[in-house]
Each structure stands twice: as structure tokens, then as C-alpha cells.
């Protein structure tokens, strides 16, 4: 199943989803696709004007372009996701999209989809980390 991860660039969540047999939907995939599709003479830009315009599907023109550009990457992923894992209160080194407005909107779009979602909190010690992995494992195995 396709599992959207939030933060969308969390390597830990990506790895866990993949490890338990699902397809992680992440920033890395979206950016990869854009890098691969670049033309030879294209500057090294991952998000193009077309992406930002596509982001209008998720937020109006009054919303800054950086938010719309981000939503253009994750919006379609959330739409195609079968489930999601959302980690709250994590430090930015764990995974971060760099924009609080985009964060809020991503969480909202996930909720609006009505798909199964596992909400987890960032573990502060080893016990919590073990618990987090167990919770995630149980959730992902339950999706099969």
C-alpha cells in the first residue's frame, strides 16, 4: 500500500514503511522524479513554475508561492495515499519541510482524505523509541 509520511522527508519513517512492505510516499520520490525529468540545459531547479501553478489546486494565489510549490509536491501524494504516518513535535533534523504553513496544510489534507493515519510523537528516550517502532510496525502490518 502507499503510505504518505509526515514529515515527508523523514528517512527514518521512509525506511520503516519500506521495511514493512509498503511504498513510502515522500519528498525524496517527488524530487527524484523532477531531477530525472530535467532537460539537459535546465538549471538545477527541482520545482518549476508549472509546479507552483499546479499548487493552486490546494491553495489560492494569495498563499505564498513557496507553500504552493510544496503542496504541488505533496498534494498529489496525499491524494494517492492509502494510509499515512504523521509524527508530531519532531526536531527539524528528523525531517522538516521548512515551512509551518505547509506543515499545517499537509496535516489538514491528510485528515480530509479520511485514510487510516497513525499519529506518533517524537521519542525522547530509548523506551519511547522502542514503543514508536512497535506502534509503527503494528500499524503497517495491519494495513496488509
Amino acid at each position, binding site marked *: 500500500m502507499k503510505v504518505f509520511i509526515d514529515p515527508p522527508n523523514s528517512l527514518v519513517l521512509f525506511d520503516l514503511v519500506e521495511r514493512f512492505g509498503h511504498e513510502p510516499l515522500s519528498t525524496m520520490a517527488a524530487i527524484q522524479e523532477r531531477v530525472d525529468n530535467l532537460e539537459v540545459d535546465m538549471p538545477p531547479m527541482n520545482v518549476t513554475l508549472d509546479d507552483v*501553478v499546479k499548487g*493552486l489546486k490546494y*491553495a489560492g494565489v494569495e498563499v505564498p508561492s513557496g507553500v504552493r510549490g510544496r503542496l504541488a509536491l505533496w498534494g498529489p501524494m496525499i491524494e494517492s495515499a492509502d494510509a499515512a504516518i504523521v509524527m508530531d513535535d519532531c526536531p527539524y533534523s528528523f525531517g522538516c519541510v521548512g515551512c509551518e504553513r505547509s506543515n*499545517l*496544510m499537509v496535516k489538514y489534507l491528510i485528515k480530509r482524505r479520511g485514510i487510516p493515519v497513525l499519529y506518533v510523537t517524537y521519542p525522547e528516550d530509548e523506551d519511547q523509541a522502542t514503543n514508536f517502532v512497535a506502534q509503527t510496525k503494528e500499524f503497517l502490518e495491519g494495513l496488509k
Partner: protein
Amino acid sequence: MTIKIAQLSCGTEYSSVQYEIEKAARSVGAKIVYPDVSAADIDDAVKRFGFNPRSPQLKLMIARAAKLADGQYDADAVFITTCFRCAEAALVRNELRRFVQENTRLPVVTYSFTERLKASQLLTRMEALVTIVTRKELLARERQTGITVGLDSGSSTTKAVVMEDNRIIGKDWTPSGDVVASATHVLENALKMAGIEMKQVEAIGTTGYGRFTLGEHFHAKLVQEELTVNSKGAVWLADRQRGEATIIDIGGMDNKAITVRDGVPDNFTMGGICAGASGRFLEMTSKRLKVDVTELGAIADRGDWRNAKMNSYCSVFGIQDLVTTLGEGKRFEDVAAAACHSVAEQVYEQQLQEIDVRHPIIQVGGTSLISGLVSAVGEVLGERPIVPPDSQYIGAVGGALLSSGFL
């Protein structure tokens, strides 16, 4: 009967515009109300809504919307407004509009304001909300009866239509000049075409910017804003009176995007801050190309917008783009196509983000006769709009249709 418009807002009090909002509501016989919520309701409402803004007043907006959605607060219409350029508020505003529409049948209008907001800017929107609430039976009218006339005094053109027993029997339009003189001119020509004398006319309906002046002059039975009147005219002309539709009216001075259910608007946006996204820009373009605006569409259809740069939020910069592009020796056809595409793109970016587009899409108004613009709108939206016959007469047809409800 005082119509209660529930205000869901952030920042109005601190932007010096609250008085203007209330003044606009009062002037159309409505009253602004605020759904009561307790502090304890707020966190629950935010959790349920799923978007947790950092600004507490946005949280309050959500809680107020939840009260409306749950039927715990009695209101007739909803006005959702936040500060222009606040990203968080813009996100909440649009999603709350969707939330209210999904959970109630209340008409909704959204607006982002600056400190320069004046009551007059909100008048048509407030009037439309009140019309939708107070004239439900009239707006449900699907057939025109008797002999009636509709007069549409628009910013660019004035139109008249004479209808008899659900048929258009006379029509005329002219560029707007003096409001009464222009309307008198088109009315006389439409009556002549219909073979009808003025004394045979049973009712007149007026709409558009000059509606009040014309209403008084011609003793109209119906004097109504253009959002509801144009919607009725559009669905009548397109024969889509039942079900849902989106009406796009790119006007001479402002644009309207209206969603309707059974011909009655339930959400609309009305733009017009900049003429770069209106028919006026196409007029300016055709003037610069030295062609009549009626020929612009066909010329644009032969061009490719990708070959000419024309992308501006402002008509002044838009014309600069136009001059530069022509200076580079681009083909007229490509420039015309680029101008049409630019208008369509801006309507999409500025108006259609505030509503949920429903199908079919009906494009109306004088600019719908510019085929290149219709093609551009179709390309931007991924679906070619329906352009009904006499699409430029929507306001006048709506006026004639609705005024027959007073017979």
C-alpha cells in the same frame, strides 16, 4: 425580516474595516452576527476541522463555523473574511468555506480585505447574499411569462432584451455612455425588433452598475444585483436550470465566478482589483493590434500563446509586455492568443481558487464571444466551457425572466 449574515473573520477590528462591513450589511437590510462559542468549544472544533492554525482568532473562526455546521447557531448566510496577504488565514478561509458548504446549505461569500475596504465594495456581495435568502421563490423561477424587459447596465456595454412567453423576441446592446440614454437607446431598438410597444411591457427588471438609476427611471419591478440575475440568465440560456454548474463571467471591469445549484448561486467570487484580468485588457490589446475586439478571438485561435510572453497581474505591465512582444516581431496571432491566455490564467488564479468548480462550466458575458478567450479558459481548466447563444445578454435575460415573477 432582517437577514442574519454570520461573520467568520480574523483581523477586521484591527484593520479599521469592521464598521464598513456592518455598514454594507445594514444598507441591504442585513445584520452581521457572530456565532456564540465558549472557550471549551474551540479546541474541539479545531481538532475536528483538522487544520490547527497558530493564530487564535483563526481558531475562533473555525469554532464559529462548527456551530453553523452543527445547526447550533441560526444564520441565513455566511461571510468569511480575512486580511489580504496572510497565508495562514488564506488557507483557513478557503477550507472553512468548503467546510460550511459541505455541512450547510447556507450561501457563502469569501473576501480578503485591506485597510482600504469600503462598504461600497461589499455592497453587491452582501446584496446577493440577501437576495438568495429573501427571494428563494423568485430565484426558483425557470420560465418567463407575459411580456417583460430586462435591462443590464454594465461597465462596458448596456443591453436590453424583450421576452414573451419564455422566448427572446427583441434584443440590442450598445457601449455604455450615459446610463439612462444608453438604456433608452437599446430598449427602443429591442422593442422595435420585437414589434412591441412600451405600453405592452408588463414588467421591467434592471441589473448591473446602473440598476438603481434605471430602476427608478423605468419604474422597474425588479432592481437586483448582477450576481443572482446573471446566474439565472446563464442557466436559462444554457438550458441548465437543474443541477450544478459553474458560471464564469469575464466582464469589462470585473469578473465573476459563481457556483449554482438549480440555478441559485451558493458561492461566488467577484474580482476586479486589476483590469489585467478583465475584458478591458482584451479591448486594450485589440486597440494596440489595430483590430476590432470582435475579431480578436478568431485571430487568437490561429496563434499559439507559448510563442509570446504575456503574463502580468496588471494591465499597465500587460500592455508593456504586449509592446515588447510586438517589438520583438512576434506574430499578431500569437500575441492575441497570449493576451487571451493571460486573462484566462489570471481568472483561474484569482477567482477560481475561491470556489470549487462544478461541472458543466458555462462561460457568459460579452467576452464569451471572443472565441480565443473561451479556448484559453478551456485549456486552463481542462474542459471547454459551454457558451450559450446570446451569452452576452445574460443580465438582461435574467432581468426579464425574474421580473415576470412580479406579474
